[in-house]
């Protein structure tokens, strides 16, 4: 029995951590700017495609160190894109009606998809995990791919780092205060516009990082952006929008529910994710946790 439960649970956790990596930046930007960035999944996708290109074009990038380095480089690159997006789009959305800003970021997602399609074509591409993470470990009786363990470790690491930053550092506290009351924060002399930009760049950098780290996880296609964003949405809405801790919990919960559900109903993979989101929202509309945390 245990040998059946553990692999499924493992799959669930891998999925959960990869979705959390995607959702973390999204929920951060929403928590501070109150803009729901539909294009977040698109930028994760761009990060993944960039990692793919660099790994394939530049020789000697098969090691774990290179893999991590490239992921960080993708984070920087996408973070820089975030700077541009903040300038051109997000600043203009200040005070704009919710429905319009939703459409604007939705349009950005379409642009991401179009850019990937024109740049890399519509075919499926794949990237192998770096040497050192390509094999598997034996944990008791189980055959666990090392890359799966890496994803789980990465997700937990990013969560801890974010949690630490937001709750224990001065800059994190400034970020939270701006999230709670931007007007008050500006009265206290905080440059709110600059903080907003920091939040956007951080969120986009997280997207790029997620893309770089997760690139070996699946086959790349222009449809990835949409898939990522929907999963991220489900997680943040169940976890409580703007709440990083909630996103982490929700990711684990939904990941396990979906993994076990798929075992029983394999014809419609992924359907339990939607069912779980709908059921949880029906009974607890505000999500599991609330407020910026």
């Amino acid at each position, binding site marked *: 029995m245990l040998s059946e439960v553990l692999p499924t649970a493992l799959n669930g956790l891998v999925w959960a951590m990869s979705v959390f990596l995607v959702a973390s930046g999204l929920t951060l930007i929403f928590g501070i700017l109150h803009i*729901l960035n539909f294009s977040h999944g698109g930028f994760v996708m761009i990060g993944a495609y960039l990692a793919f290109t660099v790994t394939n074009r530049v020789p000697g990038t098969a090691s774990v160190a290179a893999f991590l380095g490239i992921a960080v480089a993708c984070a920087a690159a996408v973070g820089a894109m975030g700077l541009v997006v903040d300038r051109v*789009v997000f600043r*203009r959305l200040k005070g*704009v*009606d*919710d*429905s*319009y800003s*939703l*459409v*604007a970021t*939705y*349009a*950005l*997602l*379409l*642009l*991401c*998809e*179009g*850019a*990937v*399609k*024109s*740049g890399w*074509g*519509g075919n499926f591409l794949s990237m192998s995990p770096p040497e050192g993470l390509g094999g598997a470990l034996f944990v008791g009786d189980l055959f666990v791919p090392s890359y799966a363990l890496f994803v789980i470790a990465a997700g937990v690491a990013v969560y801890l780092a974010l949690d630490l930053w937001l709750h224990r550092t001065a800059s994190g506290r400034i970020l939270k205060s701006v999230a709670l009351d931007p007007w008050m924060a500006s009265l206290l002399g905080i440059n709110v516009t600059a903080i907003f930009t920091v939040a956007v760049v951080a969120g986009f950098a997280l997207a790029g990082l997620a893309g770089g780290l997760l690139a070996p996880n699946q086959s790349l296609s*222009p449809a990835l952006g*949409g898939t990522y*964003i*929907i999963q991220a*949405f*489900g997680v943040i*809405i169940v976890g409580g*929008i703007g709440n990083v801790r909630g996103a982490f919990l929700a990711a684990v919960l939904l990941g396990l529910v979906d993994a076990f559900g798929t075992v029983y109903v394999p*014809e*419609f993979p*992924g*359907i339990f994710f*939607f069912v779980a*989101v*709908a059921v949880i*929202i*029906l009974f607890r*509309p*505000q999500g599991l946790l609330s407020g910026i945390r």
Partner: protein
Amino acid sequence: MPHPPQSRSFGVLTPLVAGLVLAAFATLPFWAEKGLVFLAGIVLVQIVFALSFNLMFGLTGLVSFGQAAFFAAGAYASAWMARSAPGLPFILSIAFGAAVGAALSFLIGLVALRRASGIYFAILTLALGQLIYTVIGKTTALGREDGLIGIARPVLDFGLFRVDLATGDRYYFLLVVAAAIISGALWWVWHGSLGRILAAIRQEPERVRFLGVDVRRHRENAFLISGTMTALAGALMAPWSQIITPMIAHWSYSALPILFCLLGGSARFWGPAVGAIVFAGLEHGTRNMTGMAELVVGGALLLVVLAMPGGILGTLARLSGRLAREGAR
């Protein structure tokens, strides 16, 4: 006692232009070539799609990012019904498509309108719409990823006489008539009592709540009407294009009505229709370039939101208002 002011000017210009456009559509097969007629049929369907979407967007103030799911539901349900029960009168398979759309919008509305937040609604309609897409793509009876092909244009049996819609442009004329009727019904909702309440809900939901209105129920009803009409549009389209694939349920297809509303202007009833017609030219010109469609649609949407929030009709209204003021000086 003073005279009440004209509460809403049903001016002369709007019905005149609408009538002209309708006449142009209705007479198209007599003066345009085949390809254009086909495109016009698609545009008529998209006009209905956009007008019903705008009931939620422009009138009630909520963006539904999964509207394509209703369109697909109507198309697939009616096509499947027609195929499974060949003797069934056409109108009943269309009605079945509309009923499936109604049931879906009822269920999705229950979850997505649970909280009074537009962001919440946006996320859930996107996610649940994508669920429909996934289910359609994996269902064998609906053709999985390949969809349904060879959908026949039906024969209408009125007992005393029969009309074979498969010959010539006959189905096109059905589309014209159906689009006119459905648009008329939507026009009635928009300009009538329900529309007034919805517009009020968009502006000040708390005030409406304290006028004794169950705001959530009204939003759910608006969503129900919107979803049903969208499903009708889908059901009518299936025999026109004769092939339907799961792509018409994909979230990117939901972008089209949003774009038409923004392009043409969502504050005025006919704005989405203007947007649909204007965009038809753009889309037709770029259909062969990979990735171009997303870039054009995404770029156009972004541009319109940032630079032209009122859309074409809104900008025209502002300009004509400015001209009127300057003329009065």
